[in-house]
């Protein structure tokens, strides 16, 4: 490894992690519990179609999130598609420029035209002022994305939606289990969607759900998510059935949620100690007491101080076998129009870095990552020079 006379892997050295550390939570229940749960399914021989575990999961999620209704589906994208159809949205929907690409994809598949606006410099969330500027006569909704488990509400956003008569929906894929002032995230706007992809804290081998306090909407969503006979009229339906297998995993994951949050907090603390004192690097807020589920552990680099930006950092770390992420504006939002419209989002993309934080990442590995970041910062000017030369 570098620091012992060897170079970075990106320049030909041996990688710090020959078996790469993947991004994401990848929380898995104990094998014994999984075995028992699946044996139950095999005994009942009930595998799909709104089975007992799916019904139990719908109820357990609603209870845990303190909302009226949870409707589980295939994945987070299908949850957004179902919600869009449940609200009968058409036309344009304002989305923040920092949004998962899959969210934009799902909205387009649902027949909507996502129109991006810039984000708030500190939170990275949609800014009400920028959203207001993006509204046109064809706008029907605003999507707010709870990035990085953020629990704060974009100031003025709900009022804006109400004033303009727009539906406000939340993509809360990264915020399951986050809470604000003790109240779980989930009861915002007309509805919120979650993802149970293994990158997130609750793992159902994919899976997702829509939550809402609106009973009529929940009834429509339950009709929309499958093609069973239903007395409730809806214009467009889909197959979004979650299986009993996925529900079994989700129920176990939900049972262990507090443990997963605590483990995330502990890993965050290890990162904090390891990164302490590196000039130009700041661990993002979200520690104990913040209400964040801490599934995303982010750092902000000040490129003026560090001499290297997040993009180069991600490349160097990836070569070392450390999969990190940085905020990106989805290509689908850029269209043919000139760049520079999303100055804040672009700047966050250059300075914000999300670190590996999963069940399989231990303290020793975190210490190694932190040491590497130290060395990268020390060698920043050479790294930048050599990367530029290559390009």
């Amino acid at each position, binding site marked *: 490894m570098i620091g012992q006379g060897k170079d970075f892997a990106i320049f030909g050295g041996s990688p710090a992690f020959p078996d790469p550390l*993947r991004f994401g939570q*990848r929380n*898995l229940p104990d*094998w014994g519990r*999984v*075995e028992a749960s*699946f*044996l139950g399914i*095999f*005994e009942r*021989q009930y*595998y*799909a*179609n709104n089975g007992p575990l799916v019904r139990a999961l719908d109820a357990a999620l609603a209870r845990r999130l303190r909302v009226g209704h949870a409707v589980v589906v*295939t*994945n*987070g*994208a299908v949850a957004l598609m179902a919600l869009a159809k449940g609200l009968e949205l058409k036309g344009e929907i304002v989305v923040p420029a920092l949004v998962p*690409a*899959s969210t934009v*994809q*799902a909205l*387009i*598949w649902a*027949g909507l035209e996502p129109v991006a606006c810039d984000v708030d410099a500190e939170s990275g969330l949609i800014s009400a002022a920028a959203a207001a500027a993006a509204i046109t006569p064809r706008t029907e909704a605003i999507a707010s994305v709870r990035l990085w488990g953020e629990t704060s509400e974009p100031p003025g956003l709900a009022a804006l939606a109400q004033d303009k008569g727009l539906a406000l929906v939340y993509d809360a894929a990264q915020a399951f289990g986050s809470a604000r002032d003790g109240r779980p995230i989930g009861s915002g706007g007309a509805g919120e969607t979650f993802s149970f*992809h*293994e990158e997130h804290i609750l*793992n159902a*081998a*994919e899976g997702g759900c829509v939550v809402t306090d609106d009973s009529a909407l929940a009834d429509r969503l339950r009709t929309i998510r499958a*093609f069973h006979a239903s007395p409730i*009229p809806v*214009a*467009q*339906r*889909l*197959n979004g*059935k*979650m*299986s*009993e*297998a*996925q529900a079994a*995993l989700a129920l176990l994951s939900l049972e262990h949620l507090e443990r997963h949050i605590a483990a995330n907090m502990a890993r965050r603390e290890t990162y904090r100690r390891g990164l302490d004192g590196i000039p130009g690097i700041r661990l993002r807020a979200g520690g104990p007491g913040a209400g964040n589920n801490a599934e995303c552990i982010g750092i902000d680099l000040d490129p003026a101080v560090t001499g290297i930006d997040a993009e180069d950092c991600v490349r160097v770390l990836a070569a070392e076998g450390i999969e990190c992420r940085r905020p990106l504006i989805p290509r*689908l939002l850029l269209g043919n129009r000139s760049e520079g419209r999303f100055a804040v989002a672009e700047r966050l993309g250059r300075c914000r870095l999300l670190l590996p934080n*999963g*069940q*399989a990442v231990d303290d020793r590995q975190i210490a190694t990552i932190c040491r590497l970041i130290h060395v990268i910062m020390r060698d920043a000017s050479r790294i930048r020079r050599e990367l530029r030369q290559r390009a």
Partner: protein
Amino acid sequence: MQGLTVNLRYTAILKSKIGKQSRGWAMRQNLDDLAILGGVPLFEAPRPIGQLAAPNPERFFALLRQAYETTSLTGQDGIVRRLEQRLAGLHGTKHCVAFANAWLGIIMVLRLLAAGRPGNVVMPAFGYRGLPHFARWAGQMPRFCDVDEATHCLSPVTAAAGIDAHTTCILGVAAAHSPGDVDGLCSLAASRNVPIFFDSVNALGATYRKIPLGSFGCAEAFSLHATKLLNGFEGGYVTTNDGALAKALRELRAGSAAEGAIPLPAQLNEVHAAQAHASLDGLDALIGRNQQRYDDYRTACASLAGFRILPRENADRERYNYLTIAAEIRPPWPLTRNQTVAILRAEGAFVQALYSPPLHRSVDCPPGLAVDDLPVAETLASRFLLLPSGEQVSHHDVEQVAELLHFIQHHGSAIADRLNEKTAA
């Protein structure tokens, strides 16, 4: 040793399950014994429609364990990739692309075939409730066409009537008892320069000209839903010999599509793929048991006038999966199809009217879409029902259903009177 203990445990636990009981119909003499008229239902636990196969749990757990050790249950190339290879082999195609369910695969194919043009998808009016929704998700409108009376499928003539300058695709649907005139439809598609895609969800394992379904048209779609032949809990896949189409589908489902295409997360997970592998291991034996049930029904219902178990077309030459048992009701059967369905359902035999109403007369027809009469589809939609089928239906169950049907036939007019009284009241 550890492995052996675990294996025995799975088997012991699952073998302790006792078969579902039924009370037996033989003792019943009176109309009041019918559940719909207040009697005790024939089946305590409902007998469903659907394969609901129980694959070998040892095999499932062994595969799932592999995924567990990679700490990834989705998006990996392991179990899913191997499943795709096995399925491509089963269908004799170059490519197989798996999805989280058949709907996702179908809407992606339809969208790719439309290539950005809003238009219409030619489809049978006698078909699955989801069909028009598939078209809408691909940015298309359904164009309902009539079907062939014998095959229940689009015919070259009925499909031709629906093709116009805005047609982006023909969505052929293989019926469980017949794949239809596949060559005729493919010729029509070629002559009109329209892509053709087959929904073969109900015909997995079937052949056309002794060639397994899967390689016809631009692509074919299949399901891994538990009620279908291959139980992967839930899932679906598309088979094709078109390398460019397969590549485009893989990119779409992984979120990395080329410029202009809109991806959508749609991957099959490793858990469902593990179950599908285990199901695939037992496929031939399963089809054998299905054929036994089908033969049981045919024998037990042979003397019922006006109640016919729909036979497989060219069964001497072609293969079928024998999962679906459809019955046709015509005079002199003493009751309507809907009355018959209601009586059987009350007894715990969860029969369903087949594709009724037809799509162009259903709530699934897009509002404002005017469709002329499609006489064959409308007639067929009043005639058929699906009988309990799959692994949760035993030989004894089939006999019980048949005895009930004989009772209904014998007391038909009296039952009709009582049902009419009940309705009037």
